[in-house]
């Protein structure tokens, strides 16, 4: 048992409001009991606190409940009261403990405390120190009697007389009150709000909090009206009461006000309490806080009728937050007054448990304003109250958060998709926009904007990203969803901040500029399979094969810019079932019954008219390669510009081949941006990667130019690929086998994962500098005449490589190598640049595209054109 001293006179001091700010009295818990209030299902603990001489009722704030449950806080524990308020509730004095620290869990009882009753000096004589049971525990000395003396004589107080119970002091002195209580009469009862004068509880309180003795007609309420700044002393919160009983279980119904003479209203300035201290048991309170967000004035109708409501959130200088809600008339009354960012003094609202499904603030209560509530704007700025409070979580932690939980995040917007219109399940349309947010944890997450966020912040972010800036985005109150991995979406009360002036934002920006932008972030949001998803992953057609897209269990969604080179006109559409299955048409292929009707196997019905749906196959090409793609109804219509039915009729009914051909020819050699779904499928034992067109759109020169500018920018800021200048090399030609001499190879090998803006995410892609060792006889393939070369890079111990491309002999090559087997042998490679030609050849592909007018482009010479003798 530690020798911990209880603070002498603590109970009396607390009860009388004489505890100075910052003082944390040490008391002993005489008793701990669980109470369940009728009004809510929260558990609350009621306690008796003792300073060895006196005891006082107390209530423990629910956030401390854990201590009791764990057993840390138990009967006779010695605790230090870090934050507390002393209130008068129904004439009873209750200490409300917001924060305490258990100093000694297990302890012996100290002293023989009597319930503190500051009206009755005679009653509450403390036992002298000698009487204390544990000798080594210093007990509050006989100060107390002095205190009493002090109470009654020196401090101007009013003692209640008749209205007190028999146990109370019969003192009838009508002491003059502080001026603030002036003029308060009633039935010979003079009461003041003063701590001293409040009738204390009866010596033995069986029931604890708030037991009212019958003989207190008005006092409780009268008391509570006034607040005495002087007597409250150094307390932060005014000891006030509430307007209604809190625990009706053990209280008698409050007596009516009977005798009220002229009541002097207290003109004392309001005592501001922290939001964290608000609770339904608080009487009169005032808070000073800044509005951080204001909701819309919403109209609603429910079985009880119609109404309107609006809410706003408050933040005070201690960081406490609470939501305030107003209904109907009250909403009208206050809606225009409240402005985001301004500070207000608010009082006389009622506290109720927070509705957690709507209210995500860190407070168990919510304020509901009534018509008598008071909102007073503060004219002078209060810099102690922050504008907004965030609790940023790193993206990698978001992965572990529960679905539908709320989170604040801050990160860099690395990519953003244009907003799209989405139809909700209930038929209404809204806008949706997605972006990827990356932060210092190295992870990225998909963030979805809904509704108005698309047209405001969404568009702004889009413009910024298009011009190559990657802004910082902070989100307050985003909702975590487990749609496609973990993602974050906005809700009505979310708030977005672009490039905010926070320290976190600056840190993020610095990190990004230094390393973040080159780091490939692992996304915690998986690619989804929603058809309507816009994907900004730009690939070239050769990458489909090279990167093995579509081979994993989920399809890959990519965007390519390619030109239509051929359209297959046989079977460009099929006959489809028009019947509805649920909210979608069946669309299954139907069989011709022969008699002009059609039959669908799935719906098992026949009908006279069928739908015609596109099943277009066509070939597309870009500068890297070509592929076949299939377009269905929507894609087909977008590309051809006519419906499948129209085209079908044109060909087969009207037999207008000329017009038909015209329509088809019209689309050839036009460049489009295709969103493709790439997936490997099995066709009679064969695995084939099929690409389907999800969306096809014309290339918008402006946005495409910006995209290319961004791409070039990226190229320029990456580490330049080192080019060495060795040139000793036996000449060769593309035409004949030439034996070679020595081979030099410069080995500036870097692993570059981002080559020239084309995302070659291949395993161990290295850039090597090699020299052509030998040129093989010309191989002619069907489309182009290309030489193949053998490269040798002896120093690295890698074997000869076959290289196919338009290459220049006698040149240094920068070769992009795909190492495909574990021994490190280069198995295949592709020349993406030949250094002898143009130093900037790496950007050639990209830059060429952006030229609107034909500029002077040096031609890449084919091997076949140069012959040189050795």
């Amino acid at each position, binding site marked *: 048992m530690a020798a911990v001293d209880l603070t002498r006179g603590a109970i009396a001091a607390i009860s009388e409001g004489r505890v100075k700010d910052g003082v944390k009295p040490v008391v002993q818990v005489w008793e701990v009991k669980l109470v369940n209030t009728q009004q809510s299902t929260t558990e609350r603990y009621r306690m008796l606190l003792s300073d060895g001489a006196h005891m006082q009722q107390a209530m423990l704030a629910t956030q401390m409940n854990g201590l009791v449950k764990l057993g840390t806080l138990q009967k006779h524990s010695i605790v230090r009261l870090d934050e507390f308020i002393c209130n008068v509730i129904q004439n009873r004095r209750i200490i409300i403990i917001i924060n305490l620290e258990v100093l000694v869990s297990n302890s012996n009882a100290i002293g023989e405390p009597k319930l503190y009753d500051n009206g009755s000096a005679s009653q509450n004589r403390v036992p002298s120190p000698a009487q204390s049971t544990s000798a080594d525990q210093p007990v509050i000395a006989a100060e107390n009697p002095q205190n009493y003396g002090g109470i009654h004589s020196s401090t101007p107080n009013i003692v209640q007389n008749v209205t007190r119970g028999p146990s109370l002091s019969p003192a009838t002195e009508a002491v003059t009150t502080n001026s603030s209580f002036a003029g308060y009469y009633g039935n010979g009862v003079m009461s003041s709000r003063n701590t001293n004068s409040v009738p204390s509880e009866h010596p033995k309180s069986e029931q604890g909090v708030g037991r009212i003795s019958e003989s207190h007609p008005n006092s409780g309420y009268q008391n509570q009206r006034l607040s005495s700044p002087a007597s409250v002393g150094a307390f932060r919160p005014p000891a006030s009461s509430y307007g209604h009983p809190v625990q009706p279980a053990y209280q008698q119904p409050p007596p009516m006000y009977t005798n009220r003479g002229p009541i002097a209203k207290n003109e004392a300035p309001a005592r501001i309490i922290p939001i964290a201290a608000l609770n339904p048991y608080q009487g009169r309170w005032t808070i000073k806080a800044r509005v951080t967000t204001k909701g819309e004035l919403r109209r609603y109708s429910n079985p009880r009728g119609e109404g309107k409501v609006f809410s706003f959130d408050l933040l005070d200088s201690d960081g406490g937050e609470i939501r305030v809600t107003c209904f109907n008339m009250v909403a009208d009354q206050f809606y225009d007054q409240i402005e985001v960012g301004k500070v207000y003094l608010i009082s006389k609202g009622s506290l109720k448990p927070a509705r957690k499904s709507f209210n995500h603030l860190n407070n168990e209560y919510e304020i509901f304003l009534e018509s008598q509530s008071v909102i007073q704007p503060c004219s002078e700025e209060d810099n102690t109250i922050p504008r907004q409070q965030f609790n940023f979580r790193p993206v990698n932690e978001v992965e572990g958060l529960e679905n539908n939980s709320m989170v604040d995040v801050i990160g860099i917007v690395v990519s953003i998709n244009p907003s799209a219109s989405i139809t909700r399940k209930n038929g209404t349309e809204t806008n949706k926009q997605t972006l990827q947010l990356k932060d210092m944890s190295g992870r990225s997450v998909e963030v979805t904007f809904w509704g108005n966020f698309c047209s405001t912040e969404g568009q702004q972010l889009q413009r910024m990203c298009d011009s190559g800036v990657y802004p910082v985005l902070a989100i307050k109150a985003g909702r975590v969803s487990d749609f496609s991995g973990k993602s974050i979406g906005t809700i009505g009360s979310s708030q977005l901040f672009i490039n905010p002036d926070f320290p976190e934002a600056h840190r993020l920006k610095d990190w990004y500029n230094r390393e973040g932008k080159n780091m490939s972030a692992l996304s915690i949001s998986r690619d989804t399979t929603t058809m309507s998803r816009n994907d900004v992953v730009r690939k070239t057609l050769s990458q489909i094969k090279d990167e093995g897209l579509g081979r994993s269990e989920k399809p890959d969604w990519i965007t390519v810019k390619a030109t239509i080179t051929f359209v297959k006109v046989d079977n460009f559409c099929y006959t489809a079932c028009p019947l509805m299955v649920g909210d979608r048409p069946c669309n299954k292929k139907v069989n011709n019954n022969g008699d002009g009707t059609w039959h669908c196997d799935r719906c098992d019905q026949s009908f006279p008219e069928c739908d015609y749906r596109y099943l277009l196959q066509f070939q597309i090409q870009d500068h890297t390669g070509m592929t076949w793609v299939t377009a269905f109804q929507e894609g087909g219509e977008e590309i051809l510009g006519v419906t499948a039915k129209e085209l079908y009729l044109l060909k087969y009914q009207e037999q207008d081949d000329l017009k038909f051909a015209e329509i088809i020819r019209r689309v050839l050699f036009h460049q489009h941006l295709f969103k493709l779904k790439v997936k490997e499928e099995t066709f009679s034992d064969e695995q084939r990667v099929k690409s389907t067109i999800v969306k096809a759109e014309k290339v918008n*020169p402006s946005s495409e130019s910006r995209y290319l500018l961004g791409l070039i920018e990226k190229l320029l800021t990456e580490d330049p690929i080192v080019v060495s200048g060795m040139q000793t090399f036996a000449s060769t030609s593309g035409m004949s086998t030439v034996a070679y001499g020595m081979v030099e190879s410069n080995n500036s090998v870097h692993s570059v994962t981002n080559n020239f803006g084309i995302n070659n995410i291949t395993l161990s892609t290295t850039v090597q500098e090699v020299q052509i060792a030998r040129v093989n006889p010309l191989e002619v393939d069907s489309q182009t005449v290309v030489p193949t070369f053998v490269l040798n890079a002896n120093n690295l111990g890698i074997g000869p490589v076959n290289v196919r491309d338009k290459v220049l002999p006698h040149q240094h090559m920068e070769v992009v190598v795909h190492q495909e087997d574990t021994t490190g042998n280069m198995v295949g490679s592709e020349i993406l640049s030949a250094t002898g030609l143009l130093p*900037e050849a790496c*950007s050639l592909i990209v830059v060429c595209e952006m030229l609107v007018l034909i500029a002077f482009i040096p031609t890449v010479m084919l091997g076949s054109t140069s012959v040189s003798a050795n």
Partner: protein
Amino acid sequence: MMRMDTSSPAVFVNAEILKMYLGRRVRAVIQVMRNDAGVIVGQSTDGNQITVKGAQAFPPAHFVEVIGIADGSQSIRAEICTDFGESFDMTAYNGLCQLANGKFKNLFL
């Protein structure tokens, strides 16, 4: 088919870069601010002003491409003017000017 005259290629410029090519053949896109007799005053793609001499009038706010000789730090003596219409992406063109005169200059001249 007529061969394209590549003897004196026009440099893509904006107001800033124009200064570097005095006396040379340049091309720039400007947004027409006003027309004075035979002179167009327009805004270049980098926001600065360019004067075009010897050109016919174009509707204000239209985008016009001017090919001609740079004869002042802010002016071009027009040879060919083409109206590009009312919508044109100035930012993209400005990016082109910067790239074409910066890192990739040798691709163009």
